[in-house]
């Protein structure tokens, strides 16, 4: 077996319940004792003692109900969240696939947005310029590439986003429920590109509610229930159990 590139060892993540303060200063001051007390004692446990490894070139699917902690795991791997306990080790360049239109500006053209998004995700300008033709070609946007993206359909936006990320040459790819958009042809192209990644040794962590996508692309599947790992193993076995539990 190849060496693990993502290791989560006994990781837990909890954070204060922020709703007392995000309600605003006014709210906070009027309910001061309650708010302070709740901040000190009330913590939301997003993950409890999670351990797993992802090996180089592997595609791991994460399934589970809404709010079970799947996106928190991606946040920990991306490094935007710090664990409250345990250790997270990630080796390699991480590229997250953003939700539709994030990091894009609607008034700019597709071409200008490729530059913007590419640099936001970690490339240099020179790096984006080297790849821009390949990105445009993959996106199949044709004439639209020089139009402001406010005229794009959501399928076109998804194509643009995926084209940028997939050209990043990432070592670790994080995908949070995204492939559902775009037409069948483009979806197939995305799956092909992901398989191409796999061949090149790119590690992918894939959060999805679409069992078909998970079964088609993943080598292993992890089922998160109640903020901890319920089951981890072969896709068909885990999905069968999960489907039985949620049915």
């Amino acid at each position, binding site marked *: 077996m190849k060496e693990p590139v993502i290791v989560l060892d006994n990781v837990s993540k909890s954070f204060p319940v922020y709703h007392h303060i*995000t309600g*605003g200063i006014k709210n906070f001051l009027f309910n001061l004792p309650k708010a302070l007390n709740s901040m000190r004692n009330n913590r939301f446990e997003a993950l409890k003692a999670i351990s797993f490894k992802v090996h180089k070139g592997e595609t791991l699917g994460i399934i589970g109900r809404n709010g079970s902690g799947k996106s928190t795991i*991606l*946040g920990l791997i991306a490094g*935007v969240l710090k664990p409250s306990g345990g250790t997270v080790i990630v080796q390699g360049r991480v590229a997250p696939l953003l939700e539709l239109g994030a990091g894009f500006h609607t008034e700019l053209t597709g071409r200008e947005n490729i530059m*913007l998004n590419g640099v936001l995700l970690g490339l240099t*300008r020179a790096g984006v310029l080297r790849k821009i033709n390949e990105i445009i070609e993959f996106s199949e946007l044709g004439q639209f590439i020089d139009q402001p993206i406010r005229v794009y359909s959501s399928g076109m936006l998804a194509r643009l986003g995926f084209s940028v990320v997939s050209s990043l040459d990432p070592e670790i790819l994080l995908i949070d429920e995204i492939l559902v958009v775009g037409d069948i042809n483009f979806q197939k192209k995305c799956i092909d590109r992901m398989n191409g990644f796999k061949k090149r040794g790119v590690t992918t962590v894939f959060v999805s509610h679409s069992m078909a996508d998970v079964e088609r692309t993943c080598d292993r599947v992890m089922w998160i229930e109640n903020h901890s790992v319920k089951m981890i193993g072969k896709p068909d076995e885990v999905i069968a159990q999960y489907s039985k539990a949620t049915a």
Partner: protein
Amino acid sequence: MSNFEHYRDLIFVLTQKEIKVRYKNTVLGYLWSITNPLAFAFVFFIAFKIIMRIQMEDYALFLIAGLFPWQWFANSMNASPMVFLGNASLVKKVNFPRNIIPFTMVLQDMIHFVLSIPVIVLFMFIYHKSPALIWIYGIPLLLCIQFLMTYGLSLIVSSVNLFFRDLERVTSIFMMLLFYFTPIIYPETMIPDKYKHWVYLNPVSALMISWKNLFLNGSLEMSSLLLSLGYSLLALFAGYMVFGRLSRRFAEVL
């Protein structure tokens, strides 16, 4: 790939984005940058010169020289509460230096201000004055000081606003108070003696006075300069402290 190179490119594309969007429709974009301070100047001119008859020469020029730099500061501060909130999906998912977002926001407002300096010059010609040689280093110097101060304060406001979401309202009220407590529409010499020392407790007073002296008299006073530099370094330090403390929690609260 070096970190520095990536920082530089990030700042470049993010600033370029805003500038492009603003000036895509060139003439209109430019007009938007200067209409606001000009309209303010017009209102104050009517109120104080025509109606209240303030005893000052070249009052219109005086207003414009103060309102343009203030507009930069006010625009950046009023936009600060929303900069992280408005980029929630990026902050939540991409691990990049988040202070870049307020940095480029302040930088972009600075560029709009620099581009509006010719309007000040135009008004100077109308009042038979001309730019001074000292501008060559005076303007960049004041730009730097104001940039650091605005950036520092913006870091505080943008970070704290993620936790206290109504800070936006507090900021706009505070900015309005600050505007009238800063000698912009009145000269500091008109402040009664017993209140005079208070005005320097206001961190932007010395800076705004410096801008006006630079534009109107072609002079730079060392004491105002040092005082505003002191305030801006303080703001920068405080900004980094607050941002450093809170930035780890940004993705949790969004």
